[in-house]
């Protein structure tokens, strides 16, 4: 208990000083924000597996705590994230997205702890992006990432930004469980296989140089360590039963990112060279984003996207995108509610399979955002990875409250 009868505390000057200090500290040094969401997925075809369901509800939360001190030269960010899913025990999970201390020096910055960092320029596939593991249970688009423990030194020089990373701990990819949908059946995430004897304690290293020359952004990157993309390896459990065990190999990946802004167009290219003990390969993702502003004499903007994916390994590639064409549109009405409509279409030129995404979103008031997504998968060849999702067309309704 604070003794408010204490004389010095009652003194008006002292009181003002104390309260003033307290409030300025509050304003500058601590902040909470975040969101909570409720999501429903609705499937209208019978599932492939009898364990799967026609609808799936879930709730998620991701608060963000932020402290800063030393005139913003030091800061600490903590972002836990959790989801509870009605059916899928693998999707019911927690993660620490961020728990890191950032210190800003004169022309350098250290970032130590659990973090997320994105590399890349293209929209439909992120080839170069490798620092973080995908949190695949969150969404099929793999845009959600797990927090990665790291020490990152970032140098800001006249010749660009150089990032150096040491990553002492590996995060396994998440996969939907037997009841989860869409999902790859029979994946056993409890029994991963590592090429390195250090398993998930292998120390991964990475480096990225990035720079802008007027209208052109360039980045070169190097990564040496455990591949974020597992190879799903069938293992017999009995003569009639098998499971898929994620195999994480050691790789060295060189990445190139190029982006040029020509008038209303952005030309984008990502290229990687992946060296590993099984099969070295090159892969690329490239395309164009064209924007129209103020269409039909309104405030609305319309973006057009065309991209192409190529993988040297061809149809043998474990990647879904080895010879694929992508087309997309993004309509932003620029109204008070930030209404947006996204359309994405991918076509596999080898397997003749297609996947379609339609996503509409808008805000209600100042804090609620509602998205309605529709996903359609069309595949008839069983060598095609997308074949596993052929019965998983669904509608997804997400209501998010931001604070």
């Amino acid at each position, binding site marked *: 208990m604070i003794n408010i009868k204490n004389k010095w505390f009652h003194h008006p000057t002292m009181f003002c000083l104390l309260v003033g200090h307290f409030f300025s500290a509050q304003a500058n040094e601590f*902040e909470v*924000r975040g*969101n909570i969401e409720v999501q429903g997925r609705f499937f209208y075809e019978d599932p492939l597996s009898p364990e799967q369901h026609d609808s799936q509800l879930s709730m998620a939360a991701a608060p963000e705590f*932020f402290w800063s001190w030393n005139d913003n030269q030091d*800061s600490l960010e903590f972002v836990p994230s959790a989801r509870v899913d009605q059916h899928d025990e693998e999707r019911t999970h927690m993660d620490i997205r961020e728990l890191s201390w*950032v210190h*800003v020096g*004169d*022309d350098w*910055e250290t970032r130590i702890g659990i973090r*997320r*960092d*994105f590399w*890349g*320029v293209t929209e439909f596939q992120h080839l170069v992006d490798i620092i973080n593991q995908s949190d695949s249970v969150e969404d099929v688009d793999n*845009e959600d*990432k797990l927090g990665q423990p790291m020490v990152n030194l*970032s140098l*800001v020089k006249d010749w660009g*930004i150089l990032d150096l990373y040491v990553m002492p701990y590996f995060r396994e990819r998440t996969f939907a469980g037997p009841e989860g949908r869409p999902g790859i059946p029979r994946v056993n995430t409890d029994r991963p296989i590592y090429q390195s004897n250090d398993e998930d304690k292998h120390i991964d290293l990475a480096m990225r140089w*990035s720079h*802008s020359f*007027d*209208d052109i*952004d360039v980045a070169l990157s190097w990564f040496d360590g455990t591949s974020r993309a597992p190879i799903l390896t069938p293992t017999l459990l009995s003569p009639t039963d098998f499971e898929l065990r994620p195999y994480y190999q050691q790789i060295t990946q060189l990445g190139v990112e190029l*982006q040029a*802004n020509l*008038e*209303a*167009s*952005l030309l984008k290219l990502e290229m990687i060279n992946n060296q590993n003990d099984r099969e070295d390969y090159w892969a690329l993702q490239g395309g164009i*984003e064209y*924007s129209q*502003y*103020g269409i039909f*004499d*309104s*405030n609305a*903007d319309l973006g057009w996207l065309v991209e192409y994916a190529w993988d040297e390994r061809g149809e043998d590639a474990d990647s879904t995108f080895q010879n694929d064409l992508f087309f997309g549109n993004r309509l932003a009405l*620029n*109204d*008070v*509610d*930030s209404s947006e409509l996204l359309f994405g279409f991918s076509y596999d030129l080898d397997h003749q399979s297609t996947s379609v995404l339609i996503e509409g979103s808008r*805000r209600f008031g*100042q*804090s609620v*955002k509602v998205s309605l997504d529709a996903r359609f998968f069309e595949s008839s060849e069983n060598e095609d990875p997308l074949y596993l999702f052929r019965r998983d067309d669904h509608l997804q309704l997400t209501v*998010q409250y*931001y*604070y």
Partner: protein
Amino acid sequence: MQPLNNLVGNLTSKLAIAALVASTFTFSSLASASEAAEKGLTISKESKARDIGWTDSTAELEMTLRNQHGETSTRQMRLKSIELLDDGDKSLTVFDSPNDVKGTSFLSFSHLEGNDDQWLYLPALKRVKRISSRNKSGSFMGSEFSFEDLTSFEVEKYTYEYLRDEPCNNETCWVIVQYPVDKYSGYKRRIVWVDQSEYRVQKTEFYDRKDTLLKTLTFSAYRQHLNKFWRADQLEMVNHQSGKSTLLKYNDLQLKTGLDDKDFNKNALKRAR
């Protein structure tokens, strides 16, 4: 034959006179056009010159969007800018509301010539995304301000034509037409009212590519900072074609706060919150 000859003679002489009149007229209007251009340029240069030396600034901004039905919605943001004398200014904007865009930030390098460079940081994806420089005419955050309306004024970005003197807000203003040099500007021309006492812009009219009046921007609550720099705390943009409007309010504008070039790079963009 004679009358016809006469007629032809008459006609030729009339044509000659008409041509002469036209040419002198053109000549005289050319002379006044170059004078008008010169005067417009001189005033604009002086207006810019009087605003040189603010070094850097920080401000909190509140934008109130009003639609044709009178419904309103607000957006809050913080803005940091740095003045570069050999190039356009650099700025970093962090959005604080609506809540779903909290933490989204925007880095812009404006240039005296050529395209501006712009990047957006999306905190949910931890991604820095370049924005096509052709977005000049695009709406800023759903407001009636386009990106072009919010970039720093640079003399080189326009050609000028002085029109007339006119009373404005208890002052006398020079009325000047500004023709954007950039062919991708959303405007055919802008007409600005610059007051003669302090060279402050009091009003701007924006004419779209078809040369019809699109928007009117009025500046109010001018305050002088550091005994030199005049800044309006309120800017109201009215769109005459859609009936929508946006009120932009500056709170706590500070000049010469000690920012430097290092506060305006992609690392600073990622860190901004």
